[in-house]
């Protein structure tokens, strides 16, 4: 032991400082772990030990409140940013063969002419998650359900790899994004569409929306709002769509479909009217 330490241990500073610190800690522990929890009338503890465990953050009696199970199938896909990255050429090739059964609606190269989604260039995780959800019934579609019923997990991964590999539909979006897309509605808790679906940033599982058919986009938003579609994780899209007005749903759908918004249409109508007058 150094002379300095032995001097400290002999002095009154040692018992005083250690005693005071320990005293404050013990008093704080008694109040915070015993007295306050027991004084809380909202909590009914069986014993002092229960109260201490609760104050320490241990989960007491987890079965006390029953877990509310959804009455409908929910999505079982867990998404991570690295998921389905780096597909092999074989996977893409297998996906291309499997995709022959999809061409009727989604087009030969993933570009649809039937108001079904364009799949070319869609993120692989999005394709995979939707296929899984169709299969488990989390997303309901009378058309898709029989088509995916015999797909294995690997089939769905390969299909996802194939469609992600195809070039996207070239689309020129209107120059000015509507407010709901660029800024959302802060006071209604609606994040900008672009914060997840591209333009500003993207999040795993959020689809690439640019160039999708207008009817499809609008129907999906309406279905999320009404609760007809409910395979979104943690109700993210249902919460957003419920807060959107019909005008906002229309504006966002038109924007991503590459069509001019109501303001531009009004301006166009004015120009046509003016030209008729002349």
């Amino acid at each position, binding site marked *: 032991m150094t002379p300095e330490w032995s001097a*400290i241990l002999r002095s009154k500073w040692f018992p005083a400082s250690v005693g005071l610190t320990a005293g404050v800690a013990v008093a704080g522990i008694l109040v915070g772990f015993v007295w306050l929890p027991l004084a809380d009338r909202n909590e009914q503890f069986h014993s002092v030990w229960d109260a201490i465990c609760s104050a320490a953050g241990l989960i007491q009696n987890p079965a006390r409140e029953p877990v509310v199970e959804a009455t409908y199938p929910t999505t079982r896909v867990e998404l991570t940013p690295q998921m389905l990255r780096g597909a092999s050429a074989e996977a893409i090739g297998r996906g291309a063969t499997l995709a022959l059964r999809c061409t009727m609606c989604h087009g030969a190269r993933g570009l649809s002419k039937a108001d079904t989604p364009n799949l070319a260039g869609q993120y692989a995780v999005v394709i995979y998650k939707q296929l899984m959800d169709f299969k488990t019934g989390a997303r309901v579609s009378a058309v898709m359900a029989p088509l995916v019923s015999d797909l294995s997990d690997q089939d769905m991964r390969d299909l996802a790899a194939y469609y992600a590999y195809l070039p996207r539909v070239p689309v020129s979006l209107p120059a000015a994004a509507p407010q709901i897309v660029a800024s959302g509605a802060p006071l209604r808790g609606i994040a900008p569409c672009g914060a997840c679906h591209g333009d500003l*940033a993207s999040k795993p599982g959020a689809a690439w929306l640019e160039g999708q058919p207008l009817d499809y986009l609008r129907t999906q938003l309406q279905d999320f709002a009404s609760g007809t579609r409910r395979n979104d994780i943690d109700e993210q899209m249902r919460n957003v769509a419920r807060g959107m007005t019909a005008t906002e749903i229309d504006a966002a759908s038109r924007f991503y479909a590459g069509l001019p918004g109501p303001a531009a249409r009004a301006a166009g109508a004015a120009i046509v009217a003016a030209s008729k007058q002349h």
Partner: protein
Amino acid sequence: MILAHFWLAFAGFGAALPLGAWQMYIRSPLHGWISDPDWYYRSVTAHGTTMAYVFPTLIAMGFGYFVAEAALQRPLIGLRWAWLGFWLVVVGTVTAIVPVALGLASVLYTFYPPMIGSAFYYIGVVLVVVGSWIWVALMGINMRRWKRDNPGTPVPFPMFATVAGAYLWGWTAVGAALELLFQIIPAALGLSRTIDAGLARVFFSWTLHAIVYFWLMPTYIAYYTILPRAIGGRLYSDAMGRLSFILFLVVAMPIGVHHLFADPEVGSGFKFLHSVFTALVALPTLLTVFTICASVEIAGRLRGGKGVLGWLAALPWRNPVMLGAALSFVMLGFGGAGGLINMSYQLDSTIHNTQWVTGHFHLIFGGAIVIMYFVIAYELWPHLTGRALDSLGLMRAQLWTWFVGMIVLTFPWHYVGILGMPRRMAFYDYGDPVIAAQAASVTMSVIGAAILLVSGALFFIVLARGHAAPRTEPPAYRFSIAVRPPRTLPAALNGFGLWLSLMIALTLVNYGFPIAHLLTTPGTAVPIVTMGARR
């Protein structure tokens, strides 16, 4: 070398200050909604990283090296290591800021996992911390060697206080270092796809609150060791000063969970315990307020002040050190009062995560602390450059505008927080009647930010004029002398062994269980959210 630390610190400050003003403006009613909020978060990340990590760390390092040489009256031991520390900070800062500027790490300086940005950002921050740890070691070694060469003699108080600050930082930085090295960087490098965000927040809280006291240390050292001498007085009590710094060391560290009052992963008992120890920080603060006021009163009476308040009028108010310290005290008073609300378990819920919090730490750090960084610079510049700094009027104008700007900035900021305005948002819908009334307050804050910009420009003008002034030969630097300078001291007041042991023991008591509990609880990890990925 000391000048290099100060110039780099102020260069960072000068770059980050306009970013802050821009952020205030862009989300105010004076500007339309920002079209790409990522620019706002990039700016907040750069502003926070520079102002919270780089700027105060370099000030503490530079000032620490100065104190070690001037107070111990001998050259610094380990000069080459000090340069290595400096260059680590330089390289770390560049490594961190480049990905932020590219939009690859808009995670804010508090990291906020499960958001994960570019690994370079975090590695840069680690390099800054490692550079500062070299400084921590050098401060300890220099004091130890001096004690060995001067047995039985009290360590000069400025050095004692500086080493307290260094040890506080050395230990408090461990929390964020654990979070970065074992959780965030592996995720950023793609080695893990999930992260225990709750555990990460607990680790960060270990650092998050004591870091404020680390920022505060140079300011407190200046109160004790510069102010009384600069106004012609004496330090009221050397022992009281030592006790204050010791108390900071012991109780400032294990209190960070009061930042997690709204977090579910920490039990309420620990929240209360941390609240208790946070309240104890009032002790060293009040000791300091008392000692400094008494020291200033001594100066006032020596200058002929009479009566109960007459000494106040006799003080040299035109002296920038006196003016800066007084303005700092006012801001410390308001900021401290606000802090009492933040640390109270129940009161906190009224302002948690609102603009009140941002207002609070700008008032304390940007106000009370940074204004003393200016004073330290004004005080040391002649000794570092060998040129007189004589733009006294400009210095006073700078300090006043900083004070006024900071009050105009932060008071409305606190107020909108009470009204419930959330923080960390890039735009607000002031057109909505619910928050339309907050528009005027936010506009006032923008005016405050503009005043601060002017003040920052004045600061650089003062320093630049100093560099252009003719060479002088400043006398050897002197720190304040106590009314009764200690001839001998009890071993407990002349070293840190006892206090470091208490600090570590308290950390184990206050953090040991929550960390062990989270580490051993399965299913607490969540998928990471990569920032700045594909668009």
